[in-house]
């Protein structure tokens, strides 16, 4: 029974093929080639567009410990003022906008996509969601309350610098010392050196664990030498800012460097 059915199917298929061949032969060749060409061209276009979209990551991430001033900076960038103040963020603040200082410029300006990721340790996993589209990371540090939090800050920074996506894509990082308008704020060089020292110590204790350390996929720096930020594969720069007094020019410079206007 089955063999009969298969036989019937074969005959039907052959008939269809014959019909199709006849049909194709009837179409004038020019039209046929034109149709095929259009189809191939559109497919090609779609692929190219998809590739382009992937390359242009235009997101800047604002991260740092809780209380370092990220939400204030976010609103400074967007509106030029931080309105009535901020509290600890429970969710990320996202926005695609033209920087407030550039609204007066004429012409078409590329808007920037900025994400302010909460710094509370319970909400750390949120950072990973945005890392894939990041073009630059800003690590905000409180320059006034720096020393009590230096360990937590350096651990967070170490975690970011050793994430696979950051190392592979060489995402540039800006170390932003915030709250420099206060008298007791530390200088950016001091902060940089302290962080380098702490990360050096972290390097020693983290690599003491065996090779199968799940969280840190890469190690920092060169063995045997003290750690400096210039040893990182991605570019690390340091700058100062003050969220309360709207002194954010260095931050905007960084943003515009990596997200072209």
């Amino acid at each position: 029974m089955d063999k009969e059915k298969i036989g019937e199917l074969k005959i039907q298929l052959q008939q269809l093929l014959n019909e199709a061949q006849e049909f194709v032969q009837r179409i004038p060749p020019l039209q046929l080639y034109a149709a095929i060409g259009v189809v191939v061209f559109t497919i090609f276009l779609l692929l190219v567009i998809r590739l382009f979209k992937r390359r242009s990551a235009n997101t800047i991430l604002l991260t740092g410990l809780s209380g370092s001033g990220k939400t204030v900076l976010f609103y400074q960038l967007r509106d030029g003022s931080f309105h009535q103040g901020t509290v600890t963020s429970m969710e990320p603040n996202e926005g695609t906008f033209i920087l407030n200082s550039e609204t007066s410029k004429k012409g078409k300006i590329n808007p920037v996509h900025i994400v302010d990721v909460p710094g509370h340790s319970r909400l750390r996993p949120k950072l990973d969601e945005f890392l894939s589209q990041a073009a630059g990371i800003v690590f905000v540090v409180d320059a006034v309350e720096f020393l009590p939090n230096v360990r937590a800050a350096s651990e967070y920074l170490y975690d970011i610098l050793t994430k696979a996506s950051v190392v592979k894509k060489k995402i540039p990082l800006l170390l932003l010392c915030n709250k420099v308008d206060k008298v007791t704020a530390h200088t950016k060089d001091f902060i940089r050196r302290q962080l380098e020292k702490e990360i050096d110590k972290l390097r020693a204790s983290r690599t003491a664990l065996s090779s199968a350390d799940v969280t840190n996929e890469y190690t920092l720096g060169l063995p045997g030498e003290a750690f400096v930020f210039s040893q990182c594969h991605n570019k690390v720069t340091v700058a100062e800012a003050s969220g309360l007094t709207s002194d954010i020019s260095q931050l905007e410079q960084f943003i515009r460097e990596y997200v072209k206007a």
Partner: protein
Amino acid sequence: MLEQLLIFTRGGLILWTCKELGNALRGSPIDTLIRSCLLEERSGAASYNYDTPGASYTLKWTFHNELGLVFVAVYQRILHLLYVDDLLSMIKQEFSAIYDPKRTSYDDFNDIFQQLKKEAEARAEEMKKSKQVGKPVNNNLGRKQGQVQNGSVDGGSKKKSGGESGNDGGDVDKSRGRPLENGNLRNNHVGKGEAPTMINANGKENGASKTGAFDVNKLQKLRSKAAKKTETVVNKVPKEEPKKKITKKNRVWDDSPKESKLDFTDPVSENGEQNISVVAADEGESMMDKEEIISSDSESEEEETEKDSNVDSKKKGWFSSMFQSIAGKANLEKSDLEPALKALKDRLMTKNVAEEIAEKLCESVAASLEGKRLASFTRISSTVQAAMEEALVRILTPRRSIDILRDVHAAKEQGKPYVVVFVGVNGVGKSTNLAKVAYWLLQHNVNVMMAACDTFRSGAVEQLRTHARRLQIPIFEKGYEKDPAIVAKEAIQEASRNGSDVVLVDTAGRMQDNEPLMRALSKLIYVNSPDLVLFVGEALVGNDAVDQLSKFNQKLGDLSPSPDPRLIDGILLTKFDTIDDKVGAALSMVYISGAPVMFVGCGQSYTDLKKLNVKSIVKTLLK
């Protein structure tokens, strides 16, 4: 009167504060509320208490989940304002009407707020008058149930601000602070959501029955005096049982063989090192350092189980939920969430999560989902599941770093030994896991020393001695019936002398209700100020985990002579290999204490020590 009323977004921007109530708040109550309560998944609680030198506030809040707004009211703790809940919900309604995501200043809301406040106060007055009939009976019943109710009754008697009864009660409140037997449930930042709910519920019930107030206050004072008396009696009870000095005469049976040697122990000396040669234990790599192989998540599994639970509910419910999911425009009400939440709660409880923890978690998730709009093509159950998963990951993610090696290095630089104290109830595996931790530390080239401060249980010192011999590390022991606090102190001094980096202190197991033993433990911790207080809890424990941890924390806080007591810093979860997928104890313990799980013991040999894998636990809990 209200101290402050804030409206802010979940992203952190303050949208509106009441300009009139311009008193600057002492401390930072809002930030603390967010960190200790809302982010800790305790948003189902009714209120939160915040203490700072110079002020003590109570905070109440409400969410508007669709727009992502939070409304918080702050007022003095001694006042019991009835109208706050009412006011918050009215403000929520009014504000959502004028809210616009682009706007950042809402000054026109000031007038609306004034109106609403007057309305709310008026309504509260009316309700109070109708409740003047009062229910003093409730007071009596409430008092018998425990100390928390005392706080409520006290609060109940001070309805309006001012008044002598208010001040009177305030004094009683403060003097009542320490001496009560079971300890006053101090609401510190670790946050115990139960206390505030009960306080507020009773505060409302009692109304302004001022006639009842005086009797209550008097009884209050009598009770505290009585408690003081019993407490001094308890103190005199000796801490450890003396061993029996009278030896028993051996009973002679008729047809027993002649009494020859019945003692079969080896003729070894007390210090058995000369006779036994021990091979140093080397069992390979501790599982702490091994990568855990996580099976890739198959989403189809989750969907299947979801479908099962959906089929269980009525057919009509299924059809309407399908319809809603496609339409996707319904605003979630509490009644919609209830069946899904109940199913989730039951599932959590079958995984050995303590009942009240599951309850509180579900309340918190409900609070965060209420009023939200369903996205199209999603079922209610899947939304609830996603929210619960996020909440669980958030709770189990450690709040502070659990990198012990880094802490050890830091202590080493300062030249002090790093002291870890293992506490817990009887039989959870403190000594066994202490040896495992020592083994792991040894593998990372850290000099470890053990301190045998379990001077009560027979064989405890020998047990540690055997471990120390196998691991070839020094052990500090003073035998039995010595004061553990003194032994620990001398052990730490010895460690700094012989260059050990870490001192692991073993203590005797004790029940959380045993007052004298808990006092001894808090004395040990106070005298030695360890770097890490590790609570050892077994994964087999059920609802008792909540009781154990909360009482341990509470006793360590109350019975410590220092004004800034050390509480539990971390949890060591043991016997993890004995539970298949009933991993709920981890969740209960972390939720109730806020301390992270630093180690997981999964077997009885030296290498069976792991780190907690948050994602796999969450997956197992929700399977």
